[in-house]
């Protein structure tokens, strides 16, 4: 019965069923939602705080694989370590041993509360027993070529548009009556235009400054699909500034070289372009200190107006997933701007009440002050 429930509901269903379902939902939802939201929240937090160095069940990366870590170590130790790694890495024997094993790369302090650490451990335990990943979060699927429909946007244009169109039609009629045929035709076209704009055009056409779907050819064919999708490298591994700085930044070449010192060609490379690009990268890297050396140059895709300031760290620290604004990057061969990045689109999320917000966000109901972004 449960499987086709949405279908039944959509088609009416019996009143009794509706009442029953409401009754069940009334009692069931909060409990379920809470568990669910906690799970999602920590899934989101794991993505933004841990995934760049750790995996659950996919082997060691920068740091150890965390699969079933709660069974391997004492709970107090884990909580203490995650909260203040710096203290442990200096004094605790176990921690020092691990530090040596992982090339002396120190874990940084994450500034998490005890409740957050406990939640994260719960998530890791759950993830250890089954495939859990970014798919757990309700991330938006955004079609770059289809304008997103925004409620409330452009409201107020409809009525003036129609009135304008009517006035213009009247004017055209008057002109025609007086014998000014050419002027009348011109005004008539204007009237049609105004009408089109108020009914459909305003929803179909984008503002000139809106760049949704922008997908320039880059000097190098870097594939996010391969790196973030197939290889599942966390976004923040390369764009690590996003959690510290207002700017996410394009990774410096030394980050590429962490892997590409040994990876000389891609697994699948039908066109041979991949190998060529890696070779170019290696050349640039090796000649980096020479005068007039070539540099890695990218064409900027996401470019906000200069009068807007967007802070990556604020959003990342709120457990927001990169895909929420950048779209399904892990499926993109070439980077494109998936979201419209207009103010109406930004404010859509800022207006969300805690009850409407995705479960993995830490906070919802963000500021609507102009000066939050327009500085």
């Amino acid at each position, binding site marked *: 019965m449960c499987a086709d429930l949405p279908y039944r509901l959509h088609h009416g269903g019996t009143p009794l069923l509706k009442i029953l379902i409401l009754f069940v939902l009334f009692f069931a939802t909060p409990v379920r939602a809470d568990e669910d939201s906690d799970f999602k929240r920590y899934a989101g937090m794991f993505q933004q705080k841990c995934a760049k160095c750790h995996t659950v069940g996919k082997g060691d990366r920068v740091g150890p694989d965390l699969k079933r870590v709660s069974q391997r170590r004492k709970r107090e130790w884990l909580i203490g370590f995650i909260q203040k790694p710096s203290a442990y890495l200096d004094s605790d024997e176990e921690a020092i041993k691990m530090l040596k094993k992982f090339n002396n790369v120190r874990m940084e302090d994450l500034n998490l509360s005890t409740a957050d650490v406990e939640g994260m451990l719960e998530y890791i335990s759950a993830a250890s027993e089954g495939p859990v990943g970014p798919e757990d979060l309700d991330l938006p699927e955004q079609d770059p070529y289809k304008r997103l429909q925004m409620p409330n946007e452009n409201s107020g244009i409809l009525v003036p548009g129609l009135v304008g169109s009517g006035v213009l039609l009247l004017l055209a009629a008057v002109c025609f009556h007086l014998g000014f045929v050419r002027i009348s035709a011109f005004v008539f076209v204007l009237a049609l235009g105004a009408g089109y704009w108020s009914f459909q*055009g305003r929803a179909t056409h984008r503002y000139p*400054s809106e760049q949704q779907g922008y997908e320039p050819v880059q000097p190098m064919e870097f594939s996010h699909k391969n790196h973030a999708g197939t290889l599942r490298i966390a976004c923040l591994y390369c764009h690590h500034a996003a959690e510290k700085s207002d*700017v996410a*930044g394009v*990774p410096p070449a030394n980050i590429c070289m962490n892997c590409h010192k040994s990876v000389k060609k891609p697994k699948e490379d039908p066109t041979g372009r991949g190998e060529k690009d890696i070779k170019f990268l290696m050349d640039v890297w090796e000649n980096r200190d020479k005068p007039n050396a070539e*540099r890695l140059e990218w064409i900027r895709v996401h470019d906000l*107006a200069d*009068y807007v300031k967007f802070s990556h760290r604020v959003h990342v620290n709120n457990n927001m997933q990169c895909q929420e604004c950048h779209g399904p990057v892990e499926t993109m061969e070439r980077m494109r701007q998936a979201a419209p990045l207009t103010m109406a689109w930004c404010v859509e999320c800022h207006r969300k009440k805690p009850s409407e917000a995705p479960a993995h966000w830490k906070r919802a109901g963000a500021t609507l002050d102009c000066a939050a972004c327009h*500085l």
Partner: protein
Amino acid sequence: MRRVTYKPMDKKQQEDEDKQDLVKRGSFLKGMSASFAALAASGCGLRPPKEKIIPLMEQPEGVFPGETMWYATTCGACTAACGAIAKVRDGRPIKLEGNPEHPLSRGGLCARGQASVLDLYDSERLKQPLIGGKPAAWSEIDARVDKQKEKIVVVSETIVSPTLRAAVEAFLKKTKGSKLVEYDSISASAILDAHKRTHGVRALPAYHLGKARVIVSVGADFLGSWISPVEFTKDWAPNRQPDHEWDTMSWHAQFEAAHSLTGANADLRMAIKPSAYYETLRQIGLSVAKETGWKGPKPPAGPATPLAASRIDETASQLVRAAGRSLVLSGSNDIAVQSLVNLINAMLGNYGETLDLDPRGHQKAGDDSGFDGFLAELAAGSVGGVIFLSGNPVYDHPDGARLKELLVRTKLTVSMSGRLDETAAACQLVAPDHHALESWGDAEAVDAVVSLTQPTIAPIYKTRSAVESLLAWSGAPQSAHDFLRARWKKEYLKGKDFDQRWHDTLKQGVLVVEKRRSKNPDFRPASVAKLAVQAPGSVSAFELVVYPSVSVGDGRQANNPWLHETPDPMAKTTWGNHASFAPEDAKSLDIVEGRVVRLSANGKSMELPAHIQPGQALGTVAAALGYGRTKAGPVAANFPTEKMFPIDQEGLGGTDLYPISRTFDVMVEKTERMAALAKTQTYDLMTDPITGRRRPMVQETNLQDYFKDPTSGRGDILEAGPSLWPEHEYPGQKWAMAIDLNACTGCSGCVAACGIENNVPVVGKAEVRKSRDMHWLRIDRYYNEEGEAAFQPMLCQHCDNAPCETVCPVLATLHSSEGMNMQVYNRCVGTRYCANNCPYKVRRFNWFDYAHEDLAQNMALNPDITVRSRGVMEKCSFCVQRVQSAKADAKGENRPIADGEVKPACAQSCPADAIVFGDINDKNSEISKKVGDPRSYAVLSELGVAPSVFYMTKVRNKKV
């Protein structure tokens, strides 16, 4: 720093890509009706410009793009060597702030220090060494210097860096018959010479104004420009807090000719001619000797001065009452005056208490007679070569013109100036030094307080550190960094763990060396015998008073537009200097403001516009130094406005007064010309000219009334009526500011800080004349009925019921949920209704796209702030970017914002700590305490606009 080379993109490839983009964006055109063709046509063109991202090859650990880094260093703008921290974004220093760890400057930084960051990006800086005015290689310079083996004179302004001094000594040791001559453009030579006479050591004392309950200054503008103004303001201001106990507020008397900002802050200010300084001090000395029962030789007795005896007695009795806790200062460069000052301080037992000769100050070590001796040697031809290490004596020494002539005859002339200034232009070789923000170095402004200078950017041009040049010429080339470290290892950081301690000191920016405190040398009574009664000066001529201006200083930063547009605190003039006259003198000479007058002395004459200055001593004419530079660059000569709006060039760069700066008597003539001053304030009086009633913007009282009633001084303030507006709710923070008018000295550090932080444009002289200056924060200066001046920083008051918000037709100015009044530049269409409706007149309109064509200088722009374009209104934002950034920090660390964590640029740099900013919803915050203080009031509160900026009544410590 990494060097970036841009690969030019293949043109065809670019076109192809553009086409491809267009096809994809074609939906815009599809189905578009003809009436929108025009919009569409412009629409497709409206793609943001294609931008490139060029990442670093190797990113240093802990450095992120877009992240702000702070480096402790030392300000290099003058010899006071205040501690500074440089804000570095993406490899570029963009702002200098005071280093709170520095024991002298304690987080303050003056306008000139802050503006020095723009000097770094000045495109007028030398880009490589020169020989005979032509670009040369460093090796050629070294070879030319090496040829001269003996008798080289190194001329420098006071060397405050012990490491640079060591490098000079290394060079002198190598070259036979060489010597170092130090001079100062703003000389304090007499203070040192007088101490040689009275205490046997030629030394500048270390002043401890913080310990002084009574300060008597005779012509020393110690809050504005004298020796170390930031340090002195930090010392002076805390003692100006009236308290509910007697005798907690210091008493400050100022005897001076020109009206300085120090005088404006004094409790007793007497306008006297410079020639009366000596006599006044002599009378004070006699009274002090009488009251203290001084056993030693007394100042010479003689006829009393015309100065009111009651004032002299009051001053003397105050000094004696606080003997050992008082301080007498003088800015005079006359040894007799300074000897008298030393005698009075000795009689009061102040040595060892409020001033010290051990530890002593090093901010001024110049020797006027030494420089005169050098000129004589140069004339006699006994000098083989001259190296100008720092300073610009051709311009800033009274005998500069003669020096220039003599240099032509000298075999080797080298200037190490970073720019082609007057002295460098007169030299054969120019070996440009780095800017302070590019160099390694140190500074010891006062004994045992040693601060480090570290580079915050790799050298932009092919310049070389002066230390490295000197070491190369002494035959032991070494990098400045190595030399500095080696010296520090030997001198200051002896013992184990040098690397760690060096790193810590670098991070701190300053080291206080543990030194045994030795005894001050004793006062030598015999020195008093040299003092005599002075004959009064001539009556017919005007006495000339020259002073370094608070904004431009001695003129070394004359190509800095930020400083030129920072108004003089007293006269409120920008862009150029003026001759100040007392109102009575102006009347008798029949001159009005802007009338060009000719000052002549010693066969030299200077022309400059007149300014009428209340409070100026009768029979004196005062003018600022530092203007009229011929070789500073386009800004000093005729700032950018000339390009944008052609205007006549009269006196744009001001007039150079150094040639007559050592003369006392000048002839004043009126000319036929007029030159309007570019003033930022044209209404000076606190009394309403029509009703004659006092306008209560600045509320002031005196200490006695304050004790009777802490709210005294309110004046006739009308009650605000009931508000028609619903009250705002501030669920989170509610930001507010309190400005203590008792602490504020008017030094204009905040004005500079605000402009630098917020990318406030510079508009130029012509626009200032039209009152189109853009300062978000201005300092109003008013004179009260008794001619006393008071300063009031005026900025957007962030009213709860803001009049500007209600009149904006496009909702470009709105109220935030945290009590701020926000300005949205991209919404603003420039109706200027808001500015008209603002009772405080703090909104600024961009009449033009102001100069941003100097790409080098644009590197100093703050990337967090929009650069406003033409037709947009702007105003103080309470540094909302800092609030946002602090909130992001706090959220990232899961904690609430701490009180005092957010400091707007003005509050951060204030040397007097007069500005407090914080969250008024937090009842324990500093700001809540300030606002709850009985002294707190709001300007124009009767309008009911409910400002978020509060002022604290000014209390003067005077008897009525």
